[in-house]
């Protein structure tokens, strides 16, 4: 194939020669996580030898949908994400809404009120609040569902080409069935999960883009089995069946066997293309549907992240229970008193003018509406529950939801959490744990991609014992890097790499010098020994093309780009050969074989046939695995030294070795390689054995150092988090040296920290090292000393297995300032989070970017996904997602702190607001013969928490800031307020209740004494109480507002005005008993005197106590606020802080 055709990507399929099994394994590794070796280490347990149980399998007859679906057990391909139909909407929606306990409480009270015996409120007034809330939610749900219906319809009616009686015909997606054969063209979206049978590529490769599935934009390779490649479905009869596992949501796993023409093949994740993927760079592909519709992996994954409950809400529920106890106590008190009253007046009830027990209108004199004292007590109890119902603040739940939406709005729109590089805003995926962000105590962070950019860049090279780590020149602007001419077009690598001038010069000189020869070998090895596929992409300039190196490993990409920058440009990779442009001269190398990377060997190798006929094996791998198989020379020692210095500055290193193969050895290898790759049983092990036999006695070529740069602002962010008294743990799959060096560069570790390292290989040794570490730790637990714990995954395996050791580890870790876990597997990450979560009440946060962080993100109280290079798995599982690690600081210190404070205050305020109203009602009941008359009109009772007082608390809970962003960022220690539960705790709750009691007494008894023995009527007094309570709770709120923006002014004073208007409106309706009451009331001086007096009397104690505490025991927030306002002392503060840097 000529280079001109290279537009259509032609790629060698290195796996073609190797066995299907190793293909499978390779794909498992790569899909798990491109960059993280950790997942490779643990997911590499070969799947190929596991058999599928018949019971757990589904049987798909290829091209025989009828037989496949004989027993109607498989879903069709039509999808339904919409929840409701026209008829089911009302019942189902109501059913779902009533899953909330609060609504059921609401409903029961409304129903109780409908009983004539218990009718406290009128029909309308009692149903209004519930129906209002239900209606709003139903409209919202209906709209959302209509949109889902629309998208379902579009999706289901898309067309696909399906094999029907030996011809491909267009068919709607929804009609596709399991077992049918489908043909896709380039850029088609795959309609269901299909096993590939053949593709346009002669080697059976298909490229797919999985952006819809996991957000990863680079191309992935999928393979059709060789056995099915040659078949054309229209002509050849394909007889066979596929036995695969039951549908599951693991998009990175697939296990199946295919029996075709009597041959037994195993299928893995590399043979299946999933619904939602797009076929790219492949003319066509043919596959057989195995999972359809709702059983596809994409659909199974479409359910949202599991919902978490906010800690504050959990604590709040405890107080809600207390409030219910109060409610029951109030109701009991009323009903017992009512019973006593009835008993005492038992003989008078018949003649009492205001009771009239007996009904004389009928000839038979009977009791009217009276069923004995016992029943009356019972009815009184139920009626008092109805009257005092808002003691349980139902509106609080709705307010909290609104407030969280408002808070999320501001978090999403915060400019300081917008990431320019990935053009991504902050995302709130979970809407119910905003306030948890303000109480975090432990931060668990992934390293690669989270602390670092996960953009690998080739930095230094050590070539044959010579260190090239000189000054770098960025060629951009001068020469625009290395480029080559192809048919009059300029090809250049897509990414520029900074190059070392000296090394560049030497490599240009070529083979002329001794050094040049080694450099030639080195870069050739970098360009050849990989699985990178070059893809040529167009640029706006027709004379210029860019070469994009696609591959799963960012390290390999970096190495190939580096080789290209030094003049060794990989241009083409096909089945059996690669073409490399070496300093302008195109050379073709035959790829005779390739041994894949595996986690046991920790290296890969290619066997390359050179143009001059010689054959060499090139091996690339991790240093510790390579040093064992490279001949010991002085050069090796020098390289080892260089490697140490590289990794000490946090670089990732790889070692390259090479050996020329003699003809007999090559032939020996070739025959064993072929036997191994065609073996039916134990192919992987055989191939590994062949590789190990070959990879020895190598000659050192060199070593590369790749930098995974720290993200911007990471050290500062970690410093801030540590100052805020959060414990930062780094959990990484990287090796210890790299982890420690990153720890230093991110200022996680400092030179005055004592490091405790635990590397154990057995339970016993883990135990002893833990005990030793605990002793050391105690010795260093003196002021000024801090301990950093560094522990590896192997030790963790033993420790997390044993409760006693786990306990010790927890004790140790909680005494350490920093914990670094290296070489940990994804599940271990979750295990470590669970270790802390189980043993403390402190809030945990996990942040990560890769699929391997998903378990940890879901385990932690708050999970944060970084939407970076690594795909969207972490983001999908997370509660919040953002572009950069450093955004954690404004997120936690600023937004988290605000949200926590706002929510805590709002909950307490809502308790107070409702309780004060209920208590006013309760006091009045004591003066009505315990009969639950309310002076306040029923409409005001209903509107109280809906209209009169709801807006200010929501506005304040969204907008108020207890401290400025500047102070919160400048003093991270202020975050401690949330960790210490300063805005919501039992003390505050009881103080609030005490205050509530006092305020309700003032509001009730001042008018009572003022109007005792006067001619005031019930409605007038009711209006006075209504206005007094509403004014009071709004003034109470106003006293606690810290920042008065126009919105807070509008909402607080607006509610007071709205209340007045409502009271007036209610009093101009002639059929209501309180007609004109407010006007009569307001025309008297005593009303105004009374109103003023009780507001002051109610508020003074709170005001006094608040001011006293502010002066004598000021909170940190209070001081910061003062410092913020009185700027001059702020400067003073700065100096002070610098002079006395705080400990820890």
């Amino acid at each position, binding site marked *: 194939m000529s280079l001109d055709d290279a537009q259509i990507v032609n790629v060698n399929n290195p796996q073609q020669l190797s066995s299907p099994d190793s293909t499978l394994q390779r794909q498992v590794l790569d899909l798990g996580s491109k960059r993280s070796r950790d997942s490779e280490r643990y997911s590499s347990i070969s799947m190929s030898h596991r058999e599928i149980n018949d019971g757990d399998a589904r049987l798909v007859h290829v091209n025989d949908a009828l037989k496949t679906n004989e027993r109607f057990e498989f879903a069709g391909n039509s999808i339904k994400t919409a929840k409701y139909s026209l008829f089911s909407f009302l019942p189902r929606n109501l059913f779902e809404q009533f899953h909330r306990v609060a609504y059921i409480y609401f409903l029961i009270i409304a129903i109780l009120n409908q009983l004539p015996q218990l009718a406290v409120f009128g029909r309308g007034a009692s149903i209004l609040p519930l129906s209002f809330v239900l209606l709003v939610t139903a409209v919202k749900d209906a709209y959302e569902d209509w949109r889902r219906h629309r998208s379902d319809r579009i999706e289901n009616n898309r067309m696909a080409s399906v094999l029907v009686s030996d011809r491909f015909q267009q068919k709607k997606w929804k009609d596709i069935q399991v077992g049918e054969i489908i043909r896709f063209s380039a850029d088609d979206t795959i309609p269901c999960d299909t096993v590939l049978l053949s593709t346009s590529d002669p080697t059976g490769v298909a490229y797919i883009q999985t952006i819809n599935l996991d957000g990863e934009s680079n191309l992935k390779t999928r393979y059709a089995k060789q056995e099915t490649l040659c078949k054309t479905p229209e002509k050849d009869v394909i007889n066979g069946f596929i036995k695969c596992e039951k549908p599951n949501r693991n998009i990175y796993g697939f296990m199946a066997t295919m029996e075709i023409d009597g041959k037994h093949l195993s299928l893995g994740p590399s043979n299946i293309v999933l619904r939602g993927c797009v076929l790219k760079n492949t003319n066509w592909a043919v596959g057989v549907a195995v999972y359809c519709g709702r059983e596809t992996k994409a659909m199974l994954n479409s359910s949202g992240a599991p919902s978490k409950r906010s800690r504050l809400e959990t604590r709040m529920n405890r107080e809600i229970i207390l409030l219910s106890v109060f409610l029951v106590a109030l109701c009991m008190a009323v009903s017992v008193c009512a019973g006593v009253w009835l008993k005492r007046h038992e003989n*008078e009830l018949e*003649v*009492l*003018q*205001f*009771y*009239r027990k*007996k*009904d*004389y*209108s009928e000839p038979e004199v009977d009791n009217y*509406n009276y069923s004995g004292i016992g029943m009356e007590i019972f009815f009184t109890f139920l009626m008092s529950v109805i009257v005092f119902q808002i003691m349980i603040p139902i509106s609080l739940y709705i307010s909290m939801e609104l407030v969280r939406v408002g808070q999320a709005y*501001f978090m999403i*729109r915060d*400019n300081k959490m*917008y990431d*320019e590089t990935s053009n991504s*805003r902050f995302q709130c995926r979970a809407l119910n744990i905003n306030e948890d962000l303000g109480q975090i105590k432990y931060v668990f962070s992934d390293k690669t991609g989270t602390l670092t950019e996960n953009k690998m860049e080739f930095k230094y090279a050590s070539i044959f014992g010579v260190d090239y780590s000189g000054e770098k020149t960025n060629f951009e602007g001068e020469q625009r890097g290395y480029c080559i001419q192809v048919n009059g077009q300029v090809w250049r690598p897509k990414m520029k790499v900074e190059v070392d001038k000296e090394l560049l010069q030497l490599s240009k000189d070529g083979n002329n010098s001794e050094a040049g020869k080694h450099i030639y070998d080195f870069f050739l090895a970098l360009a050849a020994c990989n699985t990178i596929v070059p893809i040529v992409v167009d640029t706006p300039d027709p004379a210029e093309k860019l070469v994009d190196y696609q591959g799963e490993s960012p390290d390999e990409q970096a190495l190939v780009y580096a080789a290209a920058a030094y003049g060794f440009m990989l241009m083409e990779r096909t089945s059996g050969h690669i073409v490399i442009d070496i300093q302008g001269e195109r050379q073709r190398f035959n790829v005779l074989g390739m041994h894949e990377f595996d986690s046991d060997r920790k290296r890969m190798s290619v066997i390359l046939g050179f143009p001059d006929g010689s054959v060499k094996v090139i091996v690339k791998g991790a240093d510790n695995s390579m040093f064992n198989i490279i001949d010991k020379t002085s050069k090796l020692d020098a390289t080892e030294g260089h490697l140490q210095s590289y990794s000490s500055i946090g670089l990732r290193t790889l070692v390259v070795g090479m050996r020329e193969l003699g003809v007999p050895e090559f032939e020996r290898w070739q025959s064993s390689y072929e036997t191994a790759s065609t073996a039916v049983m134990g192919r992987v092990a055989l191939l590994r054995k062949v590789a190990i036999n070959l990879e020895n006695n190598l000659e050192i070529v060199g070593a590369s150092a790749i930098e995974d740069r720290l993200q911007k602002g990471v050290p500062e962010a970690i410093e801030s988090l540590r100052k805020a008294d959060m414990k930062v743990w780094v959990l990484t799959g990287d090796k210890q040296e790299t982890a420690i060096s990153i720890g230093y560069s991110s200022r996680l570790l400092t030179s005055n920290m004592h490091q405790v390292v635990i590397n154990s290989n057995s339970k016993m040794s883990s135990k002893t090292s833990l005990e030793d570490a605990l002793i050391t730790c105690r010795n260093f637990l003196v002021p000024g000393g801090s301990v950093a714990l560094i522990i590896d995954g192997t030790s963790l395996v033993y420790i997390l297995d044993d409760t006693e050791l786990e306990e010790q580890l927890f004790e140790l870790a909680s005494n350490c300032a920093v914990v670094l876990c290296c070489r940990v597997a994804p599940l271990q990450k979750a295990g470590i989070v669970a270790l802390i979560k189980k043993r403390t009440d402190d809030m945990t946060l996990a942040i990560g970017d890769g699929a391997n962080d998903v378990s940890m993100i879901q385990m932690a109280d708050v999970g944060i996904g970084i939407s970076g290079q690594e795909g969207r798995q972490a983001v999908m599982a997370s509660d919040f997602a953002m572009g950069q690690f450093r955004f954690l600081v404004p997120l936690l210190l600023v937004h988290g702190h605000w949200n926590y404070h706002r929510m805590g205050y709002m909950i307490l305020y809502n308790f107070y607001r409702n309780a004060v109203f209920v208590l006013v009602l309760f006091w009045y009941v004591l003066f*009505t013969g315990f*009969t*639950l*008359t309310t002076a306040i009109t029923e409409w005001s009772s209903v509107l109280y928490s809906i209209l009169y007082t709801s807006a200010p608390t929501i506005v304040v809970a969204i*907008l108020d800031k207890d401290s400025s962003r500047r102070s919160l960022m400048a003093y991270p*220690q202020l975050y401690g307020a949330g960790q210490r539960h300063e805005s919501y705790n039992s003390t505050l709750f009881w103080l609030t209740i005490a205050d509530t009691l006092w305020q309700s007494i003032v509001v009730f008894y001042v008018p009572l*004494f*003022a109007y005792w*023995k006067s*001619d*005031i009527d*019930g409605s007038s007094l*009711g209006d006075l109480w209504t206005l007094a309570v509403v004014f009071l709770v709004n003034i109470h709120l106003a006293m606690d507002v*810290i*920042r*008065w*923006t*126009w*919105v807070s002014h509008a909402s607080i004073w607006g509610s007071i005005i709205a209340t007045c208007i409502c009271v007036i409106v209610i009093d101009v309706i*002639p*059929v*209501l*008993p309180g*007609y*004109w009451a407010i006007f*009569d009331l307001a025309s*008297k*001086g005593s009303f105004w*005197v*009374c109103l003023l*007096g009780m507001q002051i*009397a109610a508020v*003074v104690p709170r005001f*006094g106590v608040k001011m006293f505490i502010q*002066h004598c025991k000021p909170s*940190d927030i209070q*001081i910061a606020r003062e410092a913020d*306002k009185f700027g001059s*002392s*702020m400067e003073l503060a700065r100096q*002070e802080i610098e002079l006395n840097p*705080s400990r820890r």
Partner: protein
Amino acid sequence: MDASTRTKSRSKKPQYSRFTQQELPAWKPILTPKWIITSFVIIAILFTPAGLLCLWASERVVEIIDRYDDDCLPDSYSTDPDSFIQSNNTNKTCVRTLKVPRKMTAPIFIYYQLDNFYQNHRRYVKSRSDKQLRDPDEADETEDCKPINGNDDGPIVPCGLVAWSLFNDTYKFFKGNKAIDIDKKDIAWESDKKYKFGSNVYPKNFQNWELIGGGALDESKPLSEQEDLIVWMKTAALPTFRKLYGKINTDLEANETITVVIQNNYNTYVFGGEKKVALSTANWIGGKNDFFGISFLTIGGVCFFVAINFILLYVLKPRPLGDPSYLSWNRNQGAQ
């Protein structure tokens, strides 16, 4: 690259606005010691004279109260007040003499006061039909009035317990032998007379049964003119209440003796209630009530006391505002 231009044109960077960045201009009051002391002192300064003013106003109101329920019960019936009050044959006239302590200037309001009468009892409050009172066509709207809603002769107008229990003691005042005119006009709210009680609604079937709760009504007068009923039906908020009986539009001089002739008809004996007649002048504060004055003086005094305590606190234990050495982490450091 088109990719880069695309991202540029579709940048998701949030639009800057002071609102979205939570940087709206705001007033951030911090109450400094000066402010706190000033506010307490201001409250004290405002409330003390206001309290005195209220006391003075209340003091100027002249009030004569006379409890007559027990005294108007003849001794022979003292053990069985019910038979006295329920009988049609007993003489219920009762004469009381009152002394005017200070000069009372017109208008002088005459109230009757009931104690322990739960006009706010749930059974009672609900037992009325406001529709029926307004509109003769809705006379049948008596559902809420049960059991006093009607009989074979048709619905009762006005129905319900409230109207049924209409207060029916009457008072006549004499200065010496000369009767004092009692103005019984405009004792009810204007709004009630106009809109709540229809001028074309006439009492029907009222107090027609054996069990009589209270006063009867003149069937020839529309409800809007039955001001005693209108006053009575404005149910009182509290179990001890007064209702306006009438007004005296002449001044009463100090030390004058007034004779009150009472028709003691209304049964309060059954629930151990008290009946009082009250004569009172009024000013801006309403009737006689020392509560406002005392409570204002208390608030003023407490605030003054608190202000002094705060002054002492700030002098003895000053804390510079925004002093970082008070921050918790700096304090702890100092301790070490």
